[in-house]
């Protein structure tokens, strides 16, 4: 994005706030605080991009958008990082996100009250509804005229067209007596005048959303909240990696230390919003132990605990007609009938989506996950133009066995690499099996042959949980640290439970809400 004429602040100037990370958590609050007149600086580890010029329509080239700092994956169902769930750059993981934007279901915020497992959120979906509406309008969400699971909901733009996998899922679900609908997606189905910015071009169905959208159709942060923030006077500093905090005698953060090139730079500030994502946020807090050996903001011992990842099981099949799964917005159909599915022997639920896919990602899933090699692998890869997928995003319960810790291995800066332990519990295993059975039946009904299941988990969630009790949570319900009063956390790490809904819309809603709470009273305390 164009940063040429943005306002700049001195490092010696005590700015009102520093925001660390410019993804789903960082960008909306950056814009909101800048618009409220605050002097604010965002520090972003990744590069600044010009999508039209820089992004090739190529999966290998797109790996520049992935967070490639190495993480160690442990547990019985170790989760994959890098391209699977972690991005970097001005715009965060939202540069390469899939832009699938369901709202959270109210029942999932009360999963403990309802089903006696997991934990409740310290708020209700009603608290977030105004923010969901604001986001859907501002980002230009495309969706159906009638949303079967929430008839009140209105999307500003008509849906994006269905591609072959979506048509097939429609066929399969109809046969099973389940409802499906055009999905709410954060890609504009027609040209959209972005408030305070340029016109965003309509989605052209190129299917490379995960590799970065070239024409502004996808609502990544660099074409929505970040230009709004810059227009309102925020400064964004790319390629600045934060690795330390300075605390004053009152235990408040007085400066942030970051690495830019070969230099360590110190930025003075009155408040900090840590929005580095659910792996880098806890890693940074555990690394900056300062005076406390348990890490910063960690008197509860909960930093890094409760790591969660969505159950993201996929089913693939081959169809007689060409599917060309690269074409079209990849996930253009949704079903929420499985949020509390029939015949479930587990708590909670999942949503189901149709899956288009680009060829390299698909081939590597086949090689790693289907276990093929040799002639069977090559023969199957030749079927690419005839395959289609269907997949879920399933809730995941917090579990004591699942956590992030610092390993003994250092990175180039000498900061310890994160090790993440992740094992599905009984609930996740049963949910995945239920989904596999249902999706296999749908694919059979839709006419698929050579059906197989790919086990995967998606998204990085938890690790700095929000809640009422300072003994069992890292931040309060507004995102403010219980230990360090001018430190706020806002990203995927504050989620108390995973929710079946894909995370970004809810993270952005929390981001706007945290900004409001900060403006109402946070500044003065």
């Amino acid at each position: 994005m164009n940063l040429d004429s943005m306002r700049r602040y001195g490092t010696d100037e005590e700015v009102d706030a520093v925001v660390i990370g410019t993804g789903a958590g960082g960008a909306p609050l950056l814009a909101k605080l800048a618009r409220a007149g605050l002097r604010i600086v965002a520090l972003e580890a990744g590069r600044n991009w010009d999508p039209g010029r820089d992004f090739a329509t190529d999966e290998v080239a797109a790996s520049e958008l992935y967070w490639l700092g190495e993480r160690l994956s442990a547990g019985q169902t170790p989760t994959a990082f890098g391209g699977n769930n972690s991005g970097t750059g001005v715009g965060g993981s939202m540069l390469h996100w899939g832009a699938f934007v369901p709202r959270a279901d109210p029942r999932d915020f009360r999963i403990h009250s309802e089903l006696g497992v997991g934990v409740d959120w310290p708020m209700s979906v009603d608290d977030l509804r105004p923010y969901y509406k604001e986001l859907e309008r501002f980002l230009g969400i495309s969706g159906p005229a009638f949303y079967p699971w929430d008839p009140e909901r209105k999307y500003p733009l008509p849906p994006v067209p269905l591609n072959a996998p979506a048509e097939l899922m429609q066929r399969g679900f109809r046969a099973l007596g389940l409802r499906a609908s055009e999905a709410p997606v954060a890609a504009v189905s027609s040209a959209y005048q972005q408030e305070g910015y340029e016109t965003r071009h309509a989605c052209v169905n190129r299917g490379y959303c995960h590799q970065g959208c070239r024409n502004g159709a996808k609502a990544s942060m660099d074409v929505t909240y970040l230009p709004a923030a810059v227009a309102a006077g925020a400064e964004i500093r790319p390629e600045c990696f934060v690795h330390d905090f300075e605390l004053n005698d009152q235990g408040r953060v007085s400066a942030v230390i970051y690495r830019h090139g070969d230099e360590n730079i110190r930025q003075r500030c009155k408040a900090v919003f840590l929005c580095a994502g659910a792996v880098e946020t806890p890693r940074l807090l555990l690394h900056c132990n300062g005076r406390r050996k348990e890490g910063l903001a960690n008197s509860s011992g909960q930093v890094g605990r409760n790591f969660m990842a969505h159950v993201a099981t996929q089913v693939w099949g081959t169809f007689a007609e060409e599917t060309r799964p690269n074409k079209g917005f990849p996930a253009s159909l949704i079903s929420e009938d499985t949020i509390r599915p029939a015949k479930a022997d587990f708590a909670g639920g999942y949503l189901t989506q149709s899956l288009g896919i680009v060829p390299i990602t698909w081939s590597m899933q086949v090689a790693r996950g289907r276990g093929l090699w040799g002639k069977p692998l090559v023969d199957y890869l030749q079927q690419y133009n005839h395959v289609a997928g269907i997949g879920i995003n399933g809730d995941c319960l917090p579990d004591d066995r699942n956590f992030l810790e610092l390993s003994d291995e250092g990175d180039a800066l000498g900061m310890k690499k994160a090790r993440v332990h992740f094992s599905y519990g009984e609930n996740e295993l049963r949910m995945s099996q239920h989904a596999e059975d249902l999706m296999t039946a749908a694919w059979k009904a839709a006419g698929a042959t050579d059906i197989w299941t790919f086990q995967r988990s998606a998204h990085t969630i938890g690790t700095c949980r929000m809640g009422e009790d300072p003994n069992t949570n890292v931040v309060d319900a507004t995102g403010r640290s219980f230990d360090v009063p001018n430190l706020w956390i806002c990203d995927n790490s504050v989620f108390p439970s995973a929710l079946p809904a894909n995370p970004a819309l809810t993270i952005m809603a929390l981001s706007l809400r945290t900004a409001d709470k900060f403006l109402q009273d946070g500044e003065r305390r």
Partner: protein
Amino acid sequence: MSTIEEIDPSYLALIDSDRVSAQTREVLLKRLQSSDEPGRKTALSTEEKKILQALAECVVPMAGRSIDFALSIDARLAEGQGKGWRYSELPPDLTAYRGALAAIDRYARREFRTSFAELPLEKKNQTLRVIESGEMEAGEPDSGDDVPSLSATQMQRWFQDLRGDVTGIYMSHPETLAQLWYSGIADGADSAALSGFVQLGLGKVEAWEPKAKVRENES
């Protein structure tokens, strides 16, 4: 190594057409011509690369063409750039690769009295099946050898990484894309209002879209 001449001329024409952006054309052509750069840092020895190439050709056998998998993987290992994560139970990528290659060669010499790269295809595949089933006991490295030994489970995990690495290189190769008549590279010219795709849905093709390769093994 495949060259420009070996690619279907009509797919080359597509790459050259204004439906493909300049950046995309550049990365595809560069990949097509990839050859070793003199003076490049290397991580693996010539012997290790030979074993690796033999392994890769078992993972992705190609009739009548070849890709220098060992070169690509060596370049990545020498740069020290991984994929953003690794199994905690495996050592860093380069150590894992070296340990696994040594173990496989040791196994081949012990079981078949010849180096892995010289084995007939059937014996190579047999060796891979032993790794895949988590039963390769690597044995102790020769004295003086600096590479660590991997356990049978570590070998199994590493084999998954190898399959992913090799398959990604294979699928991203322009000649493979040409064989599939993959249309996704041709999403529009360089203007911001890309042309993209209009004909979506089952069996629909754009007027310009290449006919997809006929499926060989109807199931």
